[in-house]
């Protein structure tokens, strides 16, 4: 569905040159659900805008839905749906009018556009807002309308730039239901960006981590977490038991770290499958007569993955 080679984009702003995207190679197969994850300014939106033909690349190539974005931008546009980061719906227009007109822009006839608009108002919980002026909607309601606008023509390939930003948990869950259903029922290929780590983790099957305009990791969330961070077990034992504990822990895991405190010590170590390893380790320690005061298992998040890859936390960046 998508194939890019060394896709690059620089911006000149004043005397400065911003290298927003620096050589992205990406392949997305039909029916995939891919999430771009990265801090502010990483180049996520710029990449999406090149893929949707809104922005010509500085260099490199991109083929989207079988069409070269520079050679035939209009062809690309007629085959995709795009929900941008900013408000898609015009503030001075009515909700219903925007939906119908968007349908018309994509060549739907009036009956089909009406059907689709009605369906989408239902799924995105916007019933009763038909005749509201867009500027009077709340932030989350506006965002849902933007999503509805992007879905009106049922594109086979859908790009969403931070779709869930500003939505409450309930509506975010609804949105995800809807996105996942699109995939199941119609095999829609979906590429989205997000700041919500949990969202990328639980919903997307493939996470592309972008930083400073480059892809720094690209895999399933599970694989990324297992490779880049792994599960960590921490056991707290009294100082007397420390030598025995070291021995047991050395066999069970890797990357052992000790944090001594008065009278006792916390030892943490990395294991492959935490939930399985934890009872085994406790058992082994018990067998050797070690009294374990406390034990915790920490499973990694995508933030740990990012931290491991870049030395920075995504959370700090994401809250900006």
């Amino acid at each position, binding site marked *: 569905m998508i194939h890019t080679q060394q896709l690059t984009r620089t911006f000149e702003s004043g005397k400065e040159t911003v290298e927003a995207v620096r050589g992205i190679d990406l392949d997305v197969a039909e029916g995939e659900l891919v999430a771009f994850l990265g801090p502010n300014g990483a180049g996520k939106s710029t990449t999406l805008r090149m893929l949707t033909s*809104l922005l010509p690349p500085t260099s490199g190539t991109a083929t989207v839905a079988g069409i070269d974005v520079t050679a035939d931008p*209009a062809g690309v546009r007629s085959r995709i749906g*795009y929900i941008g980061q*900013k*408000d898609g*719906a015009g*503030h001075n227009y009515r909700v219903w009018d925007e939906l119908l*007109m968007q349908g*018309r822009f994509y*060549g739907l006839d009036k009956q089909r556009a009406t059907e689709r608009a009605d369906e989408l108002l239902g799924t995105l919980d916007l019933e009763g807002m038909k005749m509201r002026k867009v500027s009077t909607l709340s932030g989350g309601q506006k965002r849902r309308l933007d999503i509805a606008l992007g879905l009106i023509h049922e594109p086979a390939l859908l790009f969403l730039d931070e779709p869930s930003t500003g939505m409450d948990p309930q509506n975010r869950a609804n949105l995800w239901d809807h996105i996942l259903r699109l995939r199941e029922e119609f095999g829609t290929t979906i590429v989205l960006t997000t700041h919500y780590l949990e969202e990328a983790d639980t919903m997307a099957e493939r996470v592309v981590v972008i930083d400073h305009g480059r892809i720094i990791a690209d895999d399933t969330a599970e694989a990324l977490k297992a490779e880049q961070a792994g599960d960590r077990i921490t056991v707290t034992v009294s100082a007397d038991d420390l030598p025995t504990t070291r021995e047991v822990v050395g066999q069970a895991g890797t990357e052992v770290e000790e944090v001594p405190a008065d009278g006792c010590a916390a030892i943490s170590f990395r294991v492959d499958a935490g939930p399985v390893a934890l009872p085994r380790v406790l058992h082994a320690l018990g067998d050797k007569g070690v009294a374990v005061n406390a034990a915790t298992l920490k499973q990694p998040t995508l933030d740990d993955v990012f931290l491991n890859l870049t030395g920075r936390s995504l959370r700090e960046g994401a809250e900006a």
Partner: protein
Amino acid sequence: MSTITDSAATSARMARSSLLGDIKAVWTRETLTILRDPFSLIFSLIQPLVFLGLFAPLLAGVADDGLGFGSTLQFFLPGVVVMITMFGTSMTGANLQFEIMTGAFERILATPLARQALLIGRALKELTPLVVQALIITLVAVPFGFDLYPAHIVLGLLILGVFGVGVGALSYALAIATRKNEWAFWAVQQSLLFPLLILSGMMLPLETGPDWMQALSKVNPLTYIVDAERVLFSGTFDDSAVVYGIVAALVTCAVGLWVGVRTVTKSIL
């Protein structure tokens, strides 16, 4: 071989018919803002009447050359019609700038609509109320001795329409060029609009003005539009001013669309 030619011809035809369809779609979206907000429409209809009602009596006093109020109107009214067209279409970029800022224009750019249609449809929307305004003030002027020539007025409005699309497209180009700072749009628009209006002889005749003003008015396309409208509103087709007006309108429209479409496709929003 023949199949290739066939399909090329079909796709060309489709492209042409869809350009019209696209223009209509854009126009419809824009026009909805007027239909959904009739108050703004009523207000915009009253405005030129107020203008005419306040200005014409003064002008009648100044130009009391024995020809009467009717002939003053005959001179002045076409000027007002051109003026409201200029005001309406040159300001229209501000709407676009707002939609660029909020993000709605990016959404529309991401649809398969033809780029020219985005500009033409929008500019035609600005002209829609203007046509109604022009008709109303013309009808209102009739009881005061204004002679009405419907066929001539239709041609006059057509010329204005073509010209207005060009001005509108230029206004959009300006809006895109100045999208980073809103005031720059207004600064440029205002500092171009008034000299153009005055140097077209729209308000006051330029015959009494200095030579340099007359020279400048010769290169102002608006001059030819105003002259054509005056001739048409006074019931004459057979005058070279009409031809010059048509040419000025077509040239403005072509240049405006060329600049406008280039700006839309080249610029990074």
